[in-house]
């Protein structure tokens, strides 16, 4: 971390009224100061654009946003999901429609709640930043045995300019044994599109529970979005994380999943489309701690214009995690002469008797496919868009909430500069 940035963060922390006297925040701040924020020299951070942070004010945005946010500004709700909206990280009851789901408790975290797992790895430093500054968030507790497959939708709205204050979305999501839950988490911008958002999500899935977690990052064209998600799975737990990265000028997501219980299963399905001068970077680490656990990881990224889209998928198989079964399919598509795509699978194995498959490709559109479509009369632009669409489709198709999938497909079609010709597909 540059010395300037460190000083700025420390000053902003000292000036933040809520920070004084709060031991947990002070500890987080201290830990962050000791470790320092990452720089582009760090192996796992080399693709991200950290420079915009220098212009950010780290103190949480306070007060009403300049343009008031109304329900019409928000994404269309998804049927049967109870919506909770947060503006600049703070719960907005007027824009929320929480109907009670039996066995599910959703609370605002005005007072900083302790994290289930202390932050121990150096890649989670932005979570420390969140812990030091966040003023509110969503705490979701699901009782054991609850069946709530269409459950909670969280909408995080960034409304304040990054120069004026930051947005710290925070989610603590704990699912009891044997429960089945669906969670939608959206990140959008309204008003200023140049916000700084630093999001921290902590998930724990108890034994035999099953979670489907959908995340859509669709913040403004000049937004800076940092994100840390940690998840810990107990015995026989299942966790599916579907992520669509669409917005922001610079977005970085750090995901750390620990398969701590035997036969636990994680599915990470990530789609990222960047254009113009966007930077999308994801670092996803899955740690196999217990035996006979499974990982399925798929990434599809398209980089156009002068964008950079990066995905680093790392799997560590710890000693004792025999019977591990992991599959990685990471594919990047270059859709512009000045675009960059970085796709990187990594495996570290410290035990025998494991099965780890990985495939990674990065390339341009397939000339044979393109010629086939042209020879059938499709014009070049339509053919190219269709192929880009097809490239993403196998991962997008895994989204099991039809309305959400349609919304994401429409946004992707928009990202691919394709509104009209692909309409029929949707």
């Amino acid at each position: 971390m540059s010395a300037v940035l460190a000083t700025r963060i420390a000053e902003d922390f000292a000036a933040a009224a809520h920070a004084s006297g709060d031991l947990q925040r002070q500890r987080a701040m201290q830990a962050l100061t000791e470790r320092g924020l990452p720089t582009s020299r760090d192996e796992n951070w080399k693709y991200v654009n950290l420079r915009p942070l220098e212009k950010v004010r780290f103190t949480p945005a306070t007060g009403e946003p300049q343009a008031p946010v109304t329900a019409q500004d928000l994404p269309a709700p998804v049927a049967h999901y109870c919506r909770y909206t947060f503006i600049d990280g703070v719960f907005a009851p007027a824009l929320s429609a929480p109907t009670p789901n039996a066995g599910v408790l959703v609370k605002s975290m005005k007072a900083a709640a302790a994290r289930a797992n202390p932050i121990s790895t150096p890649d989670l430093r932005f979570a420390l930043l969140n812990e030091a500054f966040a003023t509110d968030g969503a705490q979701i507790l699901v009782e054991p045995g609850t069946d709530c497959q269409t459950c909670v939708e969280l909408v995080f709205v960034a409304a304040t300019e990054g120069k004026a204050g930051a947005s710290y979305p925070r989610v603590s999501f704990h699912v009891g044994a044997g429960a089945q839950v669906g969670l939608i988490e959206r990140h959008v911008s309204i008003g200023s599109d140049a916000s700084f958002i630093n999001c921290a999500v902590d998930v724990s899935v108890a034994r035999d529970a099953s979670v489907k977690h959908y995340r859509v990052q669709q913040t403004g064209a000049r937004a800076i979005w940092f994100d840390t998600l940690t998840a810990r799975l107990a015995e026989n737990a299942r966790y599916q994380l579907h992520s669509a990265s669409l917005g922001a000028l610079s977005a970085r997501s750090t995901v750390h999943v620990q398969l701590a219980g035997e036969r636990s299963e994680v599915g990470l399905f990530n789609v990222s489309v960047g254009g113009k001068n966007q930077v999308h970077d994801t670092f996803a680490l899955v740690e196999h701690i217990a035996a006979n656990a499974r990982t399925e990881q798929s990434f599809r990224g398209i980089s156009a214009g002068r964008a950079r889209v990066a995905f680093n998928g790392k799997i560590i198989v710890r000693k004792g995690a025999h019977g591990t079964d992991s599959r990685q399919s990471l594919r990047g598509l270059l859709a512009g002469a000045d675009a960059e795509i970085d796709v990187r699978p990594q495996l570290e194995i410290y035990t025998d008797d494991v099965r780890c498959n990985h495939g990674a490709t990065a390339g341009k559109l397939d000339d044979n496919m393109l010629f086939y479509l042209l020879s059938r009369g499709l014009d070049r632009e339509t053919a190219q868009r269709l192929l880009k669409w097809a490239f993403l489709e196998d991962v997008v198709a895994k989204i099991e909430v039809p309305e959400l999938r349609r919304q994401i497909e429409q946004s992707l079609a928009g990202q691919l500069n394709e509104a009209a010709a692909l309409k029929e597909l949707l």
Partner: protein
Amino acid sequence: MLKIENLHVAVGDNKVLNGLDLEIPTGEVHAIMGPNGSGKSTLAHVLAGRPGYEVTAGSVTYDGRDLLALEPEERAHEGVFLGFQYPVEIPGVNNVYLLKAALNAQRKHHGLPEVDAFEFLNLVREKMKLMKMDESFLSRGVNEGFSGGEKKRNEILQMLVLEPRLAVLDETDSGLDIDALKVVANGVNTLRSPEKSVVLVTHYQRLLDYVVPDHVHVLVRGKIARSGDRTLALELEKRGYDWVTEDETTPRNYALHDKTASTANQDAQFRGDPGAA
């Protein structure tokens, strides 16, 4: 309809077509036969406008227009159809969407409104029945996981939906069992009409038992070595291609023999690249 004059085509440093002359009148079916590496597939691809083939001399006139000046999609709009020897799999793009997009692209070119969704499905279903294809095919990805035979049927289905004026079918019979061959042949015969022409590129005369050509041409080392009626195909089947190559006695052909070495190289290259073979 189609007039090819003195066509020379190179792929990289290899001269594949060496002064090919061929005329296909409207309403006729012509078969083009020839040994491996003789340039049959190259001819088919050049007619469809595939990149990577350099026309170094000669001309191709289609309906009085310079075909080589048109982009691949423009050729399709004008009614030229290539049935691929190796149809490409495109996961994520479903068959029905491709058919509709292709048909609408053609209609747009001719100033017609988009096809009515209901009429379109009826049309496709009717043609699918003819090709003995299952309804489930519509929602599958283009050629995705299709068997060799299914891919070839799909090519003919696309042809029947698009109703081209000039269909160039590149070894559509290869890899088909006898039942599938009959289905494919039936599809081709359905297209036959006084307004449409078909070029059948094939190794074997088997297909020609079911789609009876008006003319048969034998392509050897990049040019037509012999032309005749359908009995030529039968003769070839009996005597093999050596009969044609050995029978060449004109001085021009001595010159061609000198290129044997480079032709052999082409063969090797084509085997490595199914798309060009």
